[in-house]
């Protein structure tokens, strides 16, 4: 099993906390699959999951980007701006 620690940003943290720990059989795994797994555990309220982006090692990445458990991973809902 691979253990992914995901930083949950903005409103995603309301349901999941600042960090979400996911134990998954697959490694690497796509951002889209990680997002689906996070959604299943902590769907939250008012979250437009289809607009949630993935971030790996401080770079916003496409849904098909592959993440490894040792990387710094975050899920980002649409920003509010400053």
């Amino acid at each position: 099993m691979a253990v992914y620690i995901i930083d949950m940003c903005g409103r995603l943290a309301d349901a999941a906390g600042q960090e979400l720990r996911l134990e998954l059989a697959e490694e690497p795994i796509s951002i889209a699959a990680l997002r689906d797994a996070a959604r299943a555990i902590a769907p939250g309220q008012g979250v437009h999951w289809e607009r949630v982006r993935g971030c790996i090692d401080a770079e916003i990445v496409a849904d098909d980007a592959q993440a490894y458990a040792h990387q710094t991973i975050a899920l980002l809902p649409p920003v509010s701006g400053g």
Partner: protein
Amino acid sequence: MTVRVTLSDAPFDPYALLAQFARDAGGDIGAIASFVGQTRATSADGAAISAMELTSYRSLTLRSMEDIAAAAATRFGLTHLLLLHRVGRMVPGEPVVLVAVAASHRRNALQAVDYAMDRLKSEAVFWKAEMGDFGRRWIEPSDGDAADLARWNIGQEEHDNNGRN
């Protein structure tokens, strides 16, 4: 060109910083322009706000601010730029953001502040929640912010070089 970008979880005095900025910019410039954003006491729907909470994803947030600051400095030929943004919980009237610029001429200075704020409002990596009698609710990006951004005709190259989007 001197560009300084700060992401702070501590309150700040924008007017003291602005005075220091003017001193640092020196006497051989023609224009200093600035913007101070404060926490509003009412929401877009008119509800009273008791506090606002800004959260960030520090590495990305800081980079998005640095990209916007660098783009403004380049596009408008600034000699100095200061961008400071708060995160954390703020009460109405409390400063949230300071943008200060120095340039040779007033129009570049004024436009640079406007440009930087429009990009900050729509692109910077922040999430805002407002609190009041209604409880706590997240603020979504607005169509108005997108329209403000469109005024600047930001090309793909400017985004690629300086932006996250």
